[in-house]
């Protein structure tokens, strides 16, 4: 698609729209494969309307050949496992609340241990 301003991806909508363009698919084709109405997909691509459920985002990632975790993060989806543990474990919930304040350097050992590629600085 012809209006990309750069590599920066700000939102869920922009990302799925860009990926759809790269795959050469139309809104209607993606909506049909996803089993949702094309009007709803048009709203998602423009960051309007209610965000889809985790299952829909995962299927969308499959159709767009994208990283499901990245799309889930952009859609603001928290996995049910994480939510459940935070519910029954207060200390874990506290840890989650502190995570945004931890520096990238402090997170490095955790990334290494979990074999996750750290974000680019």
């Amino acid at each position, binding site marked *: *698609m012809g*209006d990309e301003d750069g590599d920066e991806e700000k939102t869920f909508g922009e990302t799925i729209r860009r990926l759809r*363009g790269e795959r050469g698919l*139309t809104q*209607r084709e993606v909506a049909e494969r996803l089993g949702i109405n094309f*009007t709803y997909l048009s709203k998602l691509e*423009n960051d*309007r309307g209610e965000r889809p459920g985790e299952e829909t985002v995962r299927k969308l990632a499959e159709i767009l050949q994208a990283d499901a975790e990245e799309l889930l993060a952009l859609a603001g989806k928290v996995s049910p496992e994480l939510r459940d543990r935070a519910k029954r474990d207060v200390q874990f919930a506290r840890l989650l609340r502190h995570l945004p304040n931890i520096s990238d350097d402090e997170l490095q050992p955790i990334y290494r241990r979990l074999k996750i590629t750290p974000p680019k600085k």
Partner: protein
Amino acid sequence: MTYIPAPKIEESAAELWQRHSLAPGFDVEKLLDNLGLRLVWEPIDDEESGIILGQLIPGEKLVVLNEKHIEKLEHKQGRLRRFTVGHEIGHWLLHANLGRSGALALIENERTWCRDGSHDPLERQAEMFSAALLMPRDTLGAALPDLAWHGWSWVFGLCDKFLVNTTPMLIRLEGLGWMHRDEHDVPTAGPAPVPGQRTLFSS
């Protein structure tokens, strides 16, 4: 008021047709993608002056289709939707830059409102553009029968090929001088006879 002559509008649509290798009945939403225009379906309140089928928000490169009229827009393989999208593309290519500089009165609240049946000159230009985009002169001409034709079946056949409704097809064919209505209002090949011509040959 910006006056854009009809040949310029035809030329602009033909250029788009060529650049994007379009074919009769082409996917207008794919063209929006290729032009870098986004599309969203949302409910828009109609006005007393007429129903609103779509909007263009130039600053956001966004075309909005009125979800309230989805049935009407989607009827018969989305023929009215195709015409509306073509209309918005017309505004984008012909008028949007003027609007951004504040010179286009049509753009209210930074949106171009497309009212069904509007007689606003700029709306008419966007309509002409849509007709030229969906039914280009050369391609439509090539689809016409070689011999003189008469009757509705030819018109319906062309509508199915170009995926447009009957009214815009009739207007286009008449506008190009390729069709006129006979005394029984039936579509007939060729331009309308000049006044008096019929009487010369009648008894």
